[in-house]
């Protein structure tokens, strides 16, 4: 076994152990601790945004700017792919 593999395995194990430790400190599955932001969204999504779908209202209204970024990401990727596959003179 070469040196790189040993180092990689050790480091991998350390990071994995820390991740495993840390996830047990998150709230248990299905019981979120604080929910005030999300409850606010659910409670107000109909009268503020006039939308029945809470997720869509989050995506396009409350966090609409993220969605703009998301659309931009796709646009960027498309531009990148088109650029990579362009025909060079």
């Amino acid at each position, binding site marked *: 076994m070469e040196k790189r593999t040993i180092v990689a395995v050790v480091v991998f194990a350390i990071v994995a152990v*820390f*991740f495993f*430790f*840390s996830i047990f*400190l*998150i*709230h248990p599955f299905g019981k*979120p*601790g*604080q*929910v*005030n*932001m*999300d409850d*606010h*969204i659910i409670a*107000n999504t109909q009268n503020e945004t006039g939308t029945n779908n809470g997720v869509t209202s989050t995506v396009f*209204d*409350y*966090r*609409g*700017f*993220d969605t*703009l*970024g*998301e659309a*931009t*990401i796709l*646009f*960027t*990727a498309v*531009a*990148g*792919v*088109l*650029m*990579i596959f*362009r*025909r*060079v*003179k």
Partner: protein
Amino acid sequence: MNIIDVLIEQSPALIIAIPLLGAFLMPLVSRINSTLRNIFGLLVLCLTGFFVGILASDVLANGPRLYIFGAKDLAVPMVRILFEVDSMSIFMALITMVLAFIALIYSWSFMKDHDGLDKYYTLVLLLITSTFGMELTGDIFNFFVFLEISCIASCALIAFWISEGEALEAAFKYIVVSAIGALFVLFAIGMLYAQYNALNIATLANVLKYTFLDKIILVLLLVVLGMKAGLVPMHMWLPDSYGRAPPSVTLIIIGATLASFYGVLRVIFTLYGNVLSTTMRFSIPLNVLVGWILITLAIISIIVGVAMALVQSDFMRLIGFSAVTEVGYMFLAIGAGIAALGTPYATTALQGGILHLLNDALDIGLLFLVAGAVYYTTKKRSLDDTSGLARNMKYTTVFFVIGFLAVAGMPPLNGFASKFLIYESVYQLNPILSIVAILCSILMLAVFVKVFYAVFMGPELPAFKNVTEAPRSMLLAMGLVAALAIFIGLFPNLVIDALVKPAADALLNHAQYIGTVVGGI
């Protein structure tokens, strides 16, 4: 409520919206005419620059400014995305603006003979937008989104010269590294969200308790953003991609890298600002721990960067390694500022680091522009193949001299001003730090003297007998950067008073940042 107030109020949104709109329109515009496309790009940037300017004047005068997307005022839990522009953000935005403007001017001639330029300009505008977004945003997930945009746009631009396999290789390495990094950031954001049910930086900073999870989050954010900023030993993507991207693009990628550095500052000073000086474990305050971690990495960066630069034979790759060193200097200053938080020299170190950020962008950028000009005229990358260009390219030589003296920190150029502040503050933390910094600065001089010899001096090779000076727009771009470098070198205190000191104060005064949001309900 006159028109200028309205414009200032709306400018945070417009700074993002205008270049984005420009990017979306670019494929349509570039179908019409190529000159129109270039003019359109510059026009969009001018407009953006106008808004950045008025926003900067306002923020520097009146303190942080909020912009809430989608609503006029804040709801009680911070559900909406908001931009919080303080002096540090606007400082970064100004740097980005300058770099972007110069890159576009430079591209006018430099990119003339290439195809795929509509995509090029689109991606450049997108990269600029994402850099602005990272710098202005007050929402951590939004930061991640812009980080991703900048990753993807940078990657695509690095691969612009697709006929060179190395460019593709560099782009691939970059995207692998940054994609994984971004995913870890997302993981950290998820953990933050799980704990505090908030995504707003100020809100999070207000309630952050420094639990074990917060430690994990801090490490994740620090390491990823440090990697994106180019800290050794996670720097390896940086010379690859800097060395293979078109130089005009490299200029903007430097801006994006600096935005990652800004992310580090934001995470440490604002997100963890409350707990930074109050938390104590084993009688070591958190700020000392974090500061020394950064200092260690920074010292390694400085040494490795300059040592590797010394043996490079590719012009742009060499500058890439020296960029690693410069990043090391910034981290050194910031680390010292964090480790000694509260002392006067910590403030000096912070100011030095922030000023060095500006200088790094200008100097490394100028060197890349020169390297691009050399590549443009000779089509050679290797230092072994070029020689004696100073005979025919006088202006380029002068700009190169200015650039390399600035990077090496020779008086009276701008690099010296910031390094001066760094040396004269970090030695108070530990003298070794200053010594290493000085030494590596002189090694940097050696590196660039080698380049100076190899490219501009030496015998005149017959292949370069008929080399002509770079085109006018490239000279203009280089001249602008050089003029800025000289200006900052000659009047460093003006720049510090006007921009750097407010920025450093904004970083240190995290209570104001938090209070603008949390107190402003």
